[in-house]
Each structure stands twice: as C-alpha cells, then as structure tokens.
C-alpha cells in the first residue's frame, strides 16, 4: 500500500531560536535553585511549606522542567504532528519573557514574602501560560486525525491549565488577595495535576514516538497506548473532589490516598513497558538518553513503593516523607526524563536545520554538516548524567544529614546545571559555526 508522497513543509518548522531560548534558560533556573540550596542549606529541606523550599520547588518545576517542556512542545507539534503553533515567533517571545519574569518574581516572593512580587508573579505567569495554552490548543485542535501522542498532549495541556488555575488561586490566597480556607488540599491537588497530569501525560505521549524512534525499540502496544492517558486523566478528575471532600471533613484521608494508587498504577504500567521495550532494542549500544530514561522509570517504581510505605501509620506525618517524595518525583523521574530528552532533541534539531539548509543550497560536499555525536559528544553528556545522579543521591541523603549535605547537594546541582548549560552552549556554537559556513557558501555563489 502506498502511504505517502508528501511530507512536512519546511516552512512549518519554527526557527531554531524558538526552542533553544527555552532550553538555554532552563539550566540557568536550575543554577538559581542550586544557589538557593547553597545559601539556605538545611532550611530549604526541613518541610514542604518553608519559603525556601517553595521557592526551590518552583524554580525546578516552572524554571527547569516547564521551560524545557514549553520549548519542546512548540517544536514537536509541527515535527511530530505536522501542526505548527500559530504565530510561533511572537508567541515564543511573549511566553518566554512572561514566564521568566513570573518565575523570578514568584521565587523572590516566597523568599521575601513581599506581596507586590506575588502580584507580579501571578500576572506574568497567568498571562504567559494563557498565551502558551491558547496557542498550543489551537495547534492541537487543528489535527484532524489525532494519534495517541496527540491525545496525550491534549490531556497534558488540559492538566496544565488546571494546574495553573489552581496555582493562581493558591497564589492569590498566599499573598492575601483572597481568603483561602483549603490551602493543604488545594496545594496537593495543584501538585497532583502538575506532576501526574501535565508532566506525566506529556512524557507518556512523547515517549510513544521518541522511545521507538530514538532508542530503536519495538512500538508500544496499541492496547496500552490508546486507553492509558485517558485512564490516568479520568482517575485524576475523580481524585480531586475526593481530596476536597477530605479537606471538608466529609471523607477519611485514606479514600483519596488509596484512589491515587490508580493513576500511579498507570504510570507503573508505562514504566514497566518502557523498560521491557528498552530491553528489546535493536542496537545495544550505550546511550545517554536511555540511561536518563531508565533512571526515571526506576524512580516511578521507587515513588510507588514510598507511597505504599506511607500507609504505615505515622510515616506520612513525617516532614521528610513529603520532601523525599517531592525529590524523587521531580529530580528522580521528571528531571531525569526531560534532561535525557534534551540530549536527543538539541543535536537532532541542530542537524535537521543545517541539513535542510545544505540541501536547499545544494552545498553537499562543500560544507560538512556535523552528525549528532559531533554536535553533542557522548563524553560531555555522560559527565552531566553522573552529576545529575550524584545530585539525586545527595538530595536524598540530605534529608537524613541536612548539615552539611544540603550544601553539598546544592553544589552538585550547580555542577550538573552548569555542565548541562555548557553542553547546550557547545551544540549551539557548533550550529552557529556551520550555519555561518553555509551563509558564506551562499554569498560566494
């Protein structure tokens, strides 16, 4: 059967500066998080409500993870689905600036308690995410024959909208703009939708495409890919009112706590399938992204185990419990997967843009386009992987020996983010260098 004679149009792909500005900003926010840990030390790891902990968490979730995910989504929609984000250049500029201002204001607001900073943060983040969600939703809705990846992205963006609305509501209460009676349940629901909805569903949707493509594994089984994202999303929708009912005193906490095992089971299924597919990959060579992903998948199981342990009476009331869960969810799973993906996305995009330009100029044999490994050498990526794993271990141990390990973990996070930044800059410089050679060739014709 003939499947296709047409492909993506080059005009659909956004300029490389669109995703790269997000990718370059992310490790800088990671560095700010490291700096915060170095300044505040154990204070940032005592309980989840400490101002330094809240600032640290949002520098990682919004600054590191959010930046990369927003940039990647703007790039992936045209590449994976053939549906470009409308007005992508002004949208990317506005979203990038507004989110950067908002994240900086939010972190400073938490640390200083200044109401004005909260107001600035809520306005900038609200506006930035509003533009992002509208632009992405238009691109997603234009796809006439959505596959399971697109369904996953649609549910992820809906989860992001929910997370942002809840975040703004909590922020308004936190800064005294409105009265807030249910701070704890609302914050947990905000967290649940952010991690199990937005981050998790996007990772699942993207994995369906990129794991078989880049890691040369068999495809994910259709009987899993079609219902999984929907099932997780549906269980989250039911979990939220159950949790609020606990907050109102209508239900024992055990009910929402057991219910949350359902979406978690979905993620365990996803992690198990991914690890099994990776076992069956065709090319058994060491791959940095694969190692980052394996770390993430193993930590999905570790988080479930931790959650099950929490049912032992008096475990969950320990402040260290929620901190450990947060560290493993954010650094063990989310940062591992997202960071690992960057090592495929960045060199691939750089190569793709250069190769396209080379073909358009018919400069084959005149200007050499570097391959993926030349754009992002394994040696450099591996160094950062080790720094990331060391950070994960040190953050975990810092909960037992906060002083001095909180400072050491901060140093390790700083090293990891510096290496990531240098690696992205190295690929960017190599891209610019070859792009200039192509421009010189064009001028000499």
């Amino acid at each position: 059967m003939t499947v296709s004679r047409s492909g993506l149009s080059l005009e659909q792909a956004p300029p490389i500066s669109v995703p790269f500005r997000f990718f370059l900003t992310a490790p800088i926010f990671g560095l700010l998080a490291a700096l915060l840990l170095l300044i505040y030390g154990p204070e940032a790891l005592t309980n989840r409500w400490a101002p330094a902990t809240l600032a640290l968490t949002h520098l990682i979730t919004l600054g590191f993870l959010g930046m990369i995910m927003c940039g990647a989504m703007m790039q992936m929609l045209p590449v994976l689905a053939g549906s470009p984000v409308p007005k992508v250049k002004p949208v990317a500029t506005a979203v990038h600036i507004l989110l950067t201002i908002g994240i900086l204001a939010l972190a400073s607001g938490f640390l200083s308690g200044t109401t004005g900073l909260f107001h600035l943060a809520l306005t900038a983040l609200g506006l930035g995410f509003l533009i992002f969600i509208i632009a992405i939703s238009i691109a997603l809705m234009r796809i006439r024959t959505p596959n399971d990846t697109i369904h996953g992205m649609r549910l992820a963006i809906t989860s992001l909208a929910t997370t942002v609305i809840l975040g703004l509501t909590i922020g308004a209460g936190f800064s005294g703009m409105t009265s807030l009676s249910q701070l704890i349940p609302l914050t947990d629901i905000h967290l649940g939708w952010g991690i199990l909805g937005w981050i998790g569903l996007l990772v699942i949707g993207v994995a369906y495409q990129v794991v078989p493509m880049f890691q040369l594994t068999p495809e994910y089984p259709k009987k899993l890919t079609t219902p999984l994202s929907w099932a997780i999303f549906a269980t989250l929708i039911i979990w939220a009112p159950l949790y609020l009912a606990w907050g109102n005193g209508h239900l024992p906490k055990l009910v929402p706590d057991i219910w949350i095992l359902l979406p978690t089971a979905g993620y365990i299924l996803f992690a198990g399938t991914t690890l099994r597919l990776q076992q069956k990959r065709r090319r058994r060579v060491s791959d940095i992204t694969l190692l980052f992903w394996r770390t993430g998948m193993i930590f999905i199981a570790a988080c479930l185990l931790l959650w099950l342990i929490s049912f032992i009476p008096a475990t969950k009331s320990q402040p260290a419990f929620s901190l450990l869960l947060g560290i493993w969810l954010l650094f063990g799973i989310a940062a591992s997967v997202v960071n690992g993906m960057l090592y495929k996305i960045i060199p691939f995009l750089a190569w793709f843009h250069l190769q396209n330009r080379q073909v358009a100029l018919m400069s084959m044999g005149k200007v050499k386009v570097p391959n993926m490994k030349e754009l992002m050498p394994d040696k450099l990526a591996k160094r950062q992987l080790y720094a990331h794993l060391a950070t994960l271990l040190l953050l975990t141990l810092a909960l037992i020996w906060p002083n001095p390990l909180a400072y050491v973990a901060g140093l390790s996070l700083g090293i990891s983010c510096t290496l990531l930044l240098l690696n992205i800059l190295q690929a960017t410089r190599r891209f610019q260098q070859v792009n200039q050679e192509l421009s010189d060739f064009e001028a000499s014709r």
Partner: protein
Amino acid sequence: MEHKLDVSGLEPPEPMERILQAIETLNAGDYLYVTHRREPRMIYPMLENMGIAWITRTGGPEGYEIFLWHKGDDIASSEIPA
C-alpha cells in the same frame, strides 16, 4: 538498476544521512530501494528540494519500503516494482 539500502537498524538522523548519501550515487536509470521500520516523513521536503521523486509503501521486511529516483528519469521510474 536497483540500489538497495537497509536503514532499519539505525538511529535518527542516520537513516536520512544514509539515504541522502546514497541518492548522490544514483546514475540515470537507477533507483534506490530503502527498507525502514518507520516512515521517514522528515526527509520528504529535502527530497523535494533535491529534485528526487519517491514513493513510500507499507510492507517489505522492515515495515516500510521507499523507492527513490531522479525526477524525469522515466527509465528508473518504469523499473520500480508495481
């Protein structure tokens, strides 16, 4: 004449690199027969720019078969299996 190329065991963007390299070796009357495990949609705009015609079919040993030849090369085009 048929030139065979199996890119099914390669990681992106190597399949694209190999296909682009192989195209350069095609003489008049030649076509390239590529076996792949995925549809290489991202290469299509480049082929268009290079004046290459192609046809992609599901099937073959790896799931996808792509036939490529220079546009206007009627001999190569006529030799592509139906």
